[in-house]
Structure formats: structure tokens, C-alpha cells
């Protein structure tokens, strides 16, 4: 007897490759009851997305083989005809995807894309469908919906596009909504709004939701039941409270240990390592109690001093390409970093945090201000004199796949900076590469391999080895762990903390992830629209945030604790503002007020008064 809306039994999905069928999902069975939310969590390659696509039969029929049964409202979806399946898709089961930026057709107006579903499934006329589309856009809280109907997707932000996707998915009142990482590509305040929206709509419509995600925080916020997947198999399936409160499988425990939890650092003033748990045995390899980091010595002069740094980008328009506006990407930014210190630069897309990092390593020339490295202003140096400073200033990028040259062996990648700067005799480069690989936790024998033979986490270790090869003083880490799976993220952060302790490295840690930032940094600077709105010791920023934006950012972070689910106030619909200004715009002089020692807050205007 089953009351489940969707019942998956012994699902097995395999892809045909050159050497036969490779199964990627094995014996997966689970139920979703009407009106409930089930989350499937897992890291990349766990088979969670393939499972969801298999339910919708959206995998390439030629290359994927689906076995087992998928019963939905009394029918077996695996044996349904193509026409029958089309009546289900978008009508009874609908789906939203991870990438709102690419999931809408760029050459069709959003009105038509919305109307299309209604015309297909409900046989509405174009006019009826458009009227209904406006109503749906209102429901997903898209401001001035009627005016948006004729817009093409590129005019909408990522958050708004995801709202359009949700409107589209809900248009036929489906019984089941499959959401495949719907908020992963979004900023944290936008993510919170979209999660609120999905939850509200679910309550109103009484539909079931299958939520695919890698983010334990999101799971805790939204799911009734949680399924943990590893290597294509379900390792644990239970009520969300139970999974978080008393995880049974070692992998679930390892996953939960690696999840950064906002607020877990109260009472600790220095960065702390993540606990690393062996996936197979569940025994801790690294204990989180190990406090290895030190407080930087306040007496030493700072490694890096940034004073009134600004960076503008011209916007040109018209036939003659005249400057018609400017993006004030970075405006009057000042901060210091000392030896052995991590300053985190946090903020959302377009706040100027990456531009600041790029300006410091001179990948982009600042429009104004000073950047002093060990007391010397590097902005005024020409490329030749700056070269010698590059040794002390290194960069780690976000994308471990794109930042290593695919046609160079990793040993060459790591050796290249040393050869370019002639820092050590050529004969000893090979030995030094081996030493560096060991230092970042890789086997020196791997130096003759190519980047594609490594996983994302390993590649990021290689990038780190390359960055430390010249013995730098400061490393700018631009979202260096954002693309990594949780457990890998924890390992790489632990590595960075070890290197900081051993080499006295200073980090400028650029990140949008508040929970990670809380863990790794000594001090934090919050950026909004190109300006630092609040800067201070990590404990002060997280424990006593002053600026409304800092508060907003912190309240939007999903808390990986199902018990605290309801405590978060709902965020209003808002968009990230853009720092595009007229040509003659001069930034107002803003005062940073000292709240407590080293904790400065920018005075805020009336725009923040209503929250």
C-alpha cells in the first residue's frame, strides 16, 4: 500500500560509453508524499541531478538507460509513451534548474515563453495565456509584471529570471516541482528570497517538492525529508531533523562536519580549522578543536596598505562611442593587512570585491588611490619595476578548471613562476616542485601529469602550490574555494590555514560565503556598491554587526540546523543595485565611524531606514 505521490523503486541509470554501460545511479528507491519537500543532497558526481532528470525522462534517450520503476500518481513513468510523458512534463511535474542565466531562451520574450506552457497544456488562446502570464509573474513577485511581458531574458537579473522559471513551472499547478540546485548560482540575499518564495508557493498550492542541492544549509531550511547520495547510491534517508541531529552513515557525518555554520565561531578570535572526518569509517582525522592560527602582531607594519583605492569603468554609447556613464566598481576603499593575517572581503555580485583584488595584483590599473606593499606604492611603478614585486604578491582564482593551462604538465605550471623570476638555480627547480607538491598534500610523483587528470580540489591545491612557489607575502584568494564541494572546501581551507601558520602568509580572502569567511578570517570588510560599509575584527562583524547591509547579508545565510528554520525574518523582494553613475558623478564623502576598537562603520542614509 502506498500513498506516495511519487515512488521511485530500484532506479538504475547508466550511460552508454565507448566501453559499454557505466551505471551512475544504483538501486535508488524513495517516496515523496503529497505536499512534502524531499531534498536529495550530495556532492558533484553523486548522481542527484541524474536522478531528477531520469524522473522527467530528460536524459538523452540514445545514451542513457533507465531501469526500475518510477510511479507517479498511479502511472509508471518509465513505460509511459512519449506523448504521455509530454502531458506530464510542465503540467503535473515541472522543473526548475540551476542556471537561471541560461535556462531561458534568449531570443524569445518572457511573455511568450510563459504563455507557451499554458497554450500547450491548457489550450488557452494567446491572449488568455498572456493575461495568465501576468498573473503568474505577479505571484512570483516580479515588479511591474505586465511591462515585463515583452522583455527578453537578458534584461532581467539572475534572481528575476529564476522567478520567471518558477512562474513557468507553476503555471499548470503541478503536483510535483523538481528544483535542481535552483539557488546555487544566486547571491545569498537573492537565494533567501527564492527559497522563501518556493516555500510560500508550496504552502499555497499544496504541491510536493523534490529539491536537489549540495548545500546542507538550504536542506535544513526547506526539507521535510533528506536523502543523502554518494557515488550514485543512497547512503542515508530520513527525516531532516534526524539526519542533522543523529546522522548514521559516516559520509553524512563527514558532510555535516564540513559544513560551515554561521555562529559556530562565537568566543574564538582566530581562524579555526574544519573537522575532517574519514568518509568510510567516520573517525575524525583533523579535530576542529585544533586552534592553529595566531593573532597577527599589531606592532609589525602592515604588509599591504590600501588607501582610497578607486576603479571606474567607462560606459560608451552612441555612434562616436562617447563616455555616457561610469561603473564605479571600487570607490575610496582603504584597508591594511598584516603578516599572518586574513582579511576577508565580502559582498554580493557586482560589489567590487573582485575588482579590488585584481587592482591589488595590478591585473587592472586603479583609477586612483595608493596600494603600498611593504611600504612602497606599487600603483606608480611601471611594469618592469613592478615585476620584482609580483613575487611577493600572488593570486588564486575561483575556477580550478580554467586557471591551469590544459596543455602543461602540473610540474611545469608550478615551476613556471620560479623560472620566470629566476629565484632559484634551474637545477634545483625540480626538487623544489616536488617539495611544493608535498606541502599542498599531493604526491610529488604526480608532477608529470596533466591538469585534467586531477579533481577540482586537487587542482586548487596545484594553484596554491604555484602561488606559494615564490615565497609570497600576500595571496589574494578570489573565491578560491567557492567552486569546490563542501568536504573538499574544508580540506583546502585547512591547507590554507596551515600554510599561513608555517609561512606567515597574509591572505586577502575574497568571498561571498559568510559562513566560510567566519571560519577563516581575522578581520572582515563588507563591500556594497563599491564601498566598504563596515570593517573590523571578525568577531565584531559577526557578533555585533552595525550596518543594515551587513545585517541583511548575515540574516540571509541559510543555517544548517532544521530547528532554527522559522527564526529567520522573511526578506523583502529586492534587487542588487548597480554602481553605474553619470559621468560627472562624484562620490559623496562618507564618514566611517569607529564603533569599538578597529570596528568601523559607514554612516548610512535614508535608503536603509525601512530595512
Amino acid at each position, binding site marked *: 500500500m502506498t500513498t506516495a505521490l511519487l515512488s521511485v523503486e530500484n532506479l538504475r541509470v547508466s550511460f552508454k560509453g565507448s566501453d559499454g554501460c557505466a551505471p551512475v545511479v544504483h538501486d535508488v528507491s524513495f517516496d515523496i508524499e503529497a505536499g512534502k519537500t524531499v531534498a536529495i543532497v550530495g556532492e558533484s558526481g553523486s548522481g542527484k541531478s541524474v536522478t531528477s532528470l531520469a524522473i522527467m525522462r530528460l536524459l538523452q534517450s540514445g545514451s542513457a538507460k533507465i531501469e526500475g520503476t518510477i510511479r507517479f500518481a498511479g502511472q509508471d513513468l518509465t513505460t509511459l509513451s512519449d506523448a504521455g510523458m509530454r502531458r506530464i512534463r510542465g503540467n503535473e511535474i515541472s522543473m526548475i*534548474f540551476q542556471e537561471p542565466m541560461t*535556462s*531561458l531562451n534568449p531570443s*524569445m520574450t518572457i511573455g511568450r515563453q510563459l504563455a507557451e506552457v499554458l497554450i500547450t*497544456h491548457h489550450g488557452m488562446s494567446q491572449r488568455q495565456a498572456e493575461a495568465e502570464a501576468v498573473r503568474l509573474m505577479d505571484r512570483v513577485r516580479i515588479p511591474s509584471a505586465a511591462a515585463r511581458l515583452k522583455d527578453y531574458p537578458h534584461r532581467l537579473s539572475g534572481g528575476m529570471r529564476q522567478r520567471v522559471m518558477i512562474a*513557468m513551472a507553476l503555471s499548470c499547478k503541478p503536483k510535483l516541482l523538481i528544483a535542481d540546485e535552483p539557488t546555487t548560482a544566486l547571491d545569498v540575499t537573492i537565494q533567501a528570497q527564492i527559497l522563501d518564495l518556493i516555500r510560500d508557493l508550496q504552502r499555497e498550492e499544496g504541491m510536493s517538492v523534490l529539491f536537489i542541492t549540495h548545500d546542507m544549509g538550504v536542506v535544513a531550511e526547506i526539507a521535510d525529508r533528506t536523502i543523502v547520495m554518494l557515488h550514485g547510491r543512497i547512503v542515508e534517508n530520513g527525516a531532516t531533523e534526524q539526519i542533522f541531529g543523529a546522522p548514521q552513515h559516516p559520509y553524512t557525518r563527514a558532510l555535516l562536519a564540513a559544513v560551515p555554520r554561521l555562529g559556530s565561531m562565537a568566543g574564538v578570535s582566530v581562524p579555526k580549522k574544519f573537522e575532517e572526518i574519514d568518509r568510510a569509517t567516520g573517525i575524525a582525522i583533523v579535530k576542529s578543536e585544533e586552534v592553529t592560527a595566531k593573532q597577527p602582531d599589531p606592532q609589525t607594519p602592515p604588509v599591504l596598505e590600501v588607501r582610497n583605492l578607486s576603479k571606474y569603468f567607462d560606459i560608451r554609447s552612441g*555612434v562616436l562611442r562617447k563616455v555616457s556613464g561610469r561603473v564605479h566598481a571600487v570607490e575610496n576603499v582603504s584597508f591594511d593587512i598584516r603578516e599572518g593575517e586574513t582579511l576577508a572581503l565580502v559582498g554580493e555580485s557586482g560589489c567590487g570585491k573582485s575588482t579590488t583584488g585584481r587592482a591589488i595584483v595590478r591585473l587592472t590599473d586603479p583609477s586612483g588611490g595608493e596600494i603600498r606593499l611593504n611600504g612602497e606604492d606599487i600603483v606608480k611603478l611601471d611594469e618592469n619595476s613592478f615585476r620584482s614585486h609580483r613575487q611577493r604578491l600572488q593570486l588564486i582564482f575561483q575556477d580550478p578548471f580554467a586557471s591551469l593551462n590544459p596543455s602543461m604538465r602540473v610540474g611545469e605550471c608550478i615551476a613556471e613562476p620560479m623560472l620566470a623570476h629566476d629565484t632559484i638555480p634551474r637545477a634545483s627547480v625540480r626538487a623544489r616542485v616536488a617539495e611544493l607538491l608535498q606541502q599542498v598534500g599531493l604526491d610529488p610523483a604526480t608532477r608529470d601529469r596533466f591538469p585534467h587528470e586531477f579533481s577540482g580540489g586537487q587542482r586548487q591545491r596545484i594553484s596554491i602550490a604555484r602561488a606559494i612557489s615564490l615565497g609570497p607575502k600576500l595571496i589574494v584568494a578570489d573565491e578560491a574555494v567557492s567552486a569546490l564541494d563542501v568536504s573538499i572546501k574544508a580540506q583546502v581551507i585547512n591547507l590554507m590555514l596551515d600554510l599561513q601558520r608555517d609561512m606567515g602568509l597574509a591572505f586577502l580572502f575574497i568571498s561571498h560565503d559568510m559562513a566560510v569567511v567566519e571560519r577563516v578570517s581575522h578581520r572582515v570588510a563588507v563591500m556594497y556598491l563599491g564601498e566598504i560599509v563596515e570593517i573590523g575584527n571578525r568577531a565584531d562583524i559577526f557578533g555585533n554587526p552595525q550596518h543594515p547591509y551587513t545585517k541583511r547579508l548575515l540574516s540571509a545565510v541559510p543555517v544548517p540546523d532544521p530547528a532554527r528554520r522559522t527564526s529567520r525574518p522573511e526578506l523583502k523582494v529586492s534587487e542588487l543595485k548597480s554602481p553605474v553613475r553619470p559621468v560627472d558623478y562624484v562620490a559623496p564623502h562618507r564618514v566611517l565611524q569607529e564603533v569599538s576598537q578597529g570596528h568601523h562603520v559607514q554612516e548610512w542614509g535614508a535608503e536603509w531606514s525601512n530595512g
Partner: protein
Amino acid sequence: MLGLLARRCLVVLPTLIIVSILVFGMQKLLPGDPILALAGEDRDPQTMAYLQEKYRLNDPIPVQYAVWLKQIVTGDFGVSVRTDVPVADLIFQKLPVTIQLAAFAMVVALLIGVPAGIISAVHKGTVTDYSINVAALSGLSIPNFWLGILMILVVSVQWQLLPSSGYTSPLEDLGQNIRTMIMPALVLGTGLAGVLMRHTRSAMLGVLRSDYVRTARAKGLNERTVIIRHALRNALVPIITLSTLLFGELLAGAVLTEQIFTIPGFGKLIVDAVFTRDYAVVQGVVLCTAVGFILMNLLADILYILVNPRLRDAT
């Protein structure tokens, strides 16, 4: 969008000037002194001086260029040495013939190439895909002249269905005009269909993998709608660019086909002019072809802006 269009048009100007300088330079670099040729056997210094003066050959090069450019702009391309007909008249006679042939060939190429590309992409990795690829490769590798001769042999000589050669103006007899155009257009078009098919296929494959096609399928649309409305529209953008460039190439590149079917078009004009060293004609034809090519390029840019909503918003 208007600003972008205007800018694209403005960019054409420097290109046109460079082309005109190259064509003018070509005339200056050609071996042999035209004065010596004109002065005859006795090379009378006085006659030569007179001729130098008459053709303003003593002026500085930039002045000569300016004078020449003025003539060109006013439609004076000089006179053909061989036929004594103004070059402008020759071009005016032959160009429409070639444009018609190129247009017919393009239609053939698009009608075969684009659907074949779509079918092949949709059925990727199947026998259908494989067969279409083989056919396209054959179309690309069979030389035009051979296919032309073969068609004349079979269609005209054996079956006596279509005229083997010659040309009739559409103003005289439209039916006969079309009958004479069918075979050359097929010969030219099938050659290009292979190129178009390959590009359509790869553009479609890229688009079919995209997230928004997955979204379209997840909406429950039928496969036809997904492919035509969602995929093809976006895949067409590179096809449009390619088609206009191929058309530009056809204007100058139909030489062999025009020879085989003895069509009095541009290609035939240029071949005849080169063999008789009729430089004024060569110059005029080269200039015309280059300008045609540039204009087709401009057309590609404009169409590109029109089909791409992102660019429509650009200023």
C-alpha cells in the same frame, strides 16, 4: 540599436577606401607603361609628352588617385580596350545575370543545407547523420566543373530536359530564363549546401545541448516545437552570417560554372578581360566584387543585430 547600426555602416567607409587604394595601386603596379603602348612604334617624345599630360600622369600619385576616385564615384570606370564599350555598361549588363545565378544557387544551398544540418544534428550518431555527412562531404569534394559537365550530359544531351547552355534575359522569356538557370544554380548550390549543412549541424548541436532547450522539453512541448521554435532560431545566427559571406563569394566565384554553361555573367567577363589584358575591365570588376563583398558583410552585421535581442538593446 540605431546607434549600433549607424556605427556598423560607418565602419564600412574606411574599408571601402582601402579597397579603392588597393585597386588603384594594382593599376600602378602592373608591368608595362601604358604610354609606351599607346604611343605606337616610333615613340615620338612629343606624342608621349602629350599623352602624359592628357592622362595626368605627371601629377603626384595622390592627385592621380583623387582624380581616379572622382571618376569611379561618378560611375566612370573607363573604356574597355577590347570592345570599346564603357566598363560601367559592361558591368551593368553582366552583374544582374550573376546576381540572379548567385541568388538561385543560394536558395538551392539553403534549401538543402539547413534542413540536412538540422536532421543530422537531431539524429546525431545515427545512420541518418552518417549518410548526410557522407553526402555533404561528396558535395564539397566533387568539383563544380565535373558535376556541371555530367549534368549537361545526362539532363540535356541524354534526356533533353533542359538547355545545355546559353542565357535568356528574364525580361524576354521568364520561363526560358529559369530553365537555363536551373542546372548552373544546382551545380553551385550543391557545392555550398555541404558547407551550410556542416555549420548548421554544429550550431544546432551546440544549441540542442543548451539549458533553455532542456527547459523547453521540461515544459512538455513536443519535439518539433522544441527544435524549430527554441533551437533553430538561436542556431540561425551563425548561419545568417555564413550565408551572406557565401553569397558575396558567389558573385566572384561562379567563374567556372559560368564558363561551362556559357552564361554571360561576371565570371565570364573577368576571365575574358584577364586573358585579353583588358585592365580597365579587370579593375572595374574587382572593385565591384570587393564592394559587393563588403556590402554583404554589412548585411550580415545588420541581420545579426536584428535577430539578436541582446544587440537590439545595445547603443
